[in-house]
């Protein structure tokens, strides 16, 4: 008769079970390692992205003009989107050589007109339209016809910064950005620990301050938690404000 003896069967089943268990454990360990690695990368990426975005947006701001508020969970600022050099004027408005991260949108953008002392005068951008060839532009620039509020006609050679009002927040588990009164859109994965993440303005002496005008630096803390894991990734970003109070008053 063909077949296996009971002993053989038991032995086979036992050995098969042992081998299968070992293999399953190995696979599971590998899978867990891979997932942990991927999650760690995602968490690190969230911190890195937050640091990169905030460094790019905050470092070049003029604290007493561009920062409305720095609270522990958010920073309300003027977000600069472009630079324009006035190259002429016609009856309708001023001609500018513009370069920026996007095209101007009067519905949401305003203009900071830099005076001779480089102090800025905020003005509404009433209209903006392309005006190619109206001025000679350098590579990367395009010429536009702008109409500014208050009937402003700055002279040729004046500089203006295009900006929108926005708020960066470390809430709801992510770095979020809100333009004007709009909703807060997450810029990172929602793995940040709200309690361990936030902003803090420092004065020139390095002491915390709630007055943006006295800010010389901003410290951003962010901690990312990997879901289903004990692992936490933390970053502390020290952003020296290049136009901050610590740098003023020097020839």
């Amino acid at each position: 008769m063909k077949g296996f003896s009971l002993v053989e069967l038991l032995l086979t089943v036992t050995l098969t079970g042992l081998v299968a268990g070992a293999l399953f454990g190995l696979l599971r360990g590998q899978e867990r390692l891979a997932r942990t690695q991927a999650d760690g990368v995602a968490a690190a990426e969230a911190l890195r992205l937050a640091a990169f975005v905030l460094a790019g947006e905050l470092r070049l701001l003029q604290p007493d003009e561009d920062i409305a508020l720095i609270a522990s969970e958010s920073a309300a600022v003027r977000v600069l989107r472009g630079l324009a050099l006035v190259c002429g004027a016609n009856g309708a408005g001023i001609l500018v050589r513009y370069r920026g991260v996007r095209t101007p949108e009067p519905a949401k953008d305003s203009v900071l007109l830099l005076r001779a002392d480089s102090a800025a005068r905020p003005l509404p951008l009433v209209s903006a339209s392309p005006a190619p060839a109206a001025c000679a532009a350098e590579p990367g620039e395009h010429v536009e016809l702008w109409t500014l509020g208050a009937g402003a006609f700055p002279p040729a050679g004046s500089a203006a910064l295009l900006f929108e009002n926005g708020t960066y927040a470390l809430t709801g588990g992510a770095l979020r950005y809100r333009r004007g009164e709009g909703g807060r859109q997450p810029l990172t994965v929602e793995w940040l620990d709200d309690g361990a993440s936030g902003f803090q303005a420092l004065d020139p002496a390095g002491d915390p301050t709630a007055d943006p005008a006295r800010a010389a630096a901003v410290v951003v803390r962010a901690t990312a938690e990997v879901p289903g894991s004990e692992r936490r990734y933390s970053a502390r970003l020290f952003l020296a404000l290049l136009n901050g109070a610590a740098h003023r008053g020097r020839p």
Partner: protein
Amino acid sequence: MRPVRGPVPPGPPLPEPAPRVLAAHATPGREDGDAPAILTGNVATRNSAGFALLLALLVLLALGTLGTGLLFVSTLETRVSRALVHATRARAAAESAARAALTGWDAPAHRRLAPGTAVDVAVAPDALDPDVHAHARVVRLAGGLFLIRAEAEIRPPAGAGAHAAVGLLTRALHPAEFGPDFSAAVSAAGPVVLLPGAVVDGAGSAEPAATPDCPPDPLLGVPSGPRAGIAIADAPLLRVEPSAALHGAPPLEIAAHLADSAAFSGLGPLGMADVTRLADRLVAEGLDLTAGPGGDGCDVGSAGAGSLDGAVGPAGAPCSGDAQLIFSPGRLTVSGAGRGVLVVDGDLELAPGAAFAGAILATGRLTLAPGASVTGAVRAREASIAGAIRFDACALARAFAEAPGLNRPLRPAGRSWVPTF
């Protein structure tokens, strides 16, 4: 029938024994279901079935997939980190290039730019790492503002690089910003006393008319033509002794704003703190101009001693490179001959024989001894003059244009760093 293990039962001889070759199918007389032949100790069964190989392959596949994934993640992480490092380096390099442009600031050349025009600025090639390429451009804006637009690019031997740009707003002083404060040979709050033998002349000049390299009036930003001899807050505050000479157009000008204490609180747009920081030379109590730079053989009245472009005169020319911004925080006595811009936060005395060409600002009392002379203009709260003060727009313009301290780029009152996109 079960396979038989053990010696092969007798049977027909094999035609060609082939060691270690499974030859069951070649065994003559074998019936289906009979035991296969076992040859030379190797066992093979027709019904051999197993999953070890398949299982091993599957496990290898799974491990390989996971391993590849981990490798990909690690590689990606490395690339992202490297890109971040490049981006940070590019940003730092752009800021360094902007600062380098500031360090090599060429005030005369930049002053000649028309608003809206630009000039490239060289960045020392060894100032940055070899894989960093940076350049800067100075754009003249309206007013006294300039924008240094600096860009840097990281070009690694392999992989993606990074690019960054940044702008640095800079303020530069122009002689025209100081001109209105020196619109007369002597500007004073009063009292002013012209002692016997004193000469104050706003109409004439020790020099001939403006030479082609000395067009003073546009540079000073004031109307051309003769100037007032003395501008004073109120007429009774002036006393002219017999044999003292006062000339000008008009000889006496009433300027009520000079009574304001703020009229003597700084030099043009600069406060005293700024002057202190910018001064080429800080002195106290006594100053012998002859012992200073250019004091050797400097004819302060010589035309062509320096140029209005802001560059110093040709090598070997009288007074070449000697115009300075000199500041004294308190009382000062001056002797010898020299030129430049002299600012004294207190009383100033020019000793007999002292000769100065340029601009003088004294927040206290100016005493000009007999034989002392000033070619240019003086601004002082009070004055006692026994020497000669002759207005000279050319000497003024040269002093303001050439003093290194006034040719330095300044940080604007507002923002300095701006994104340039």
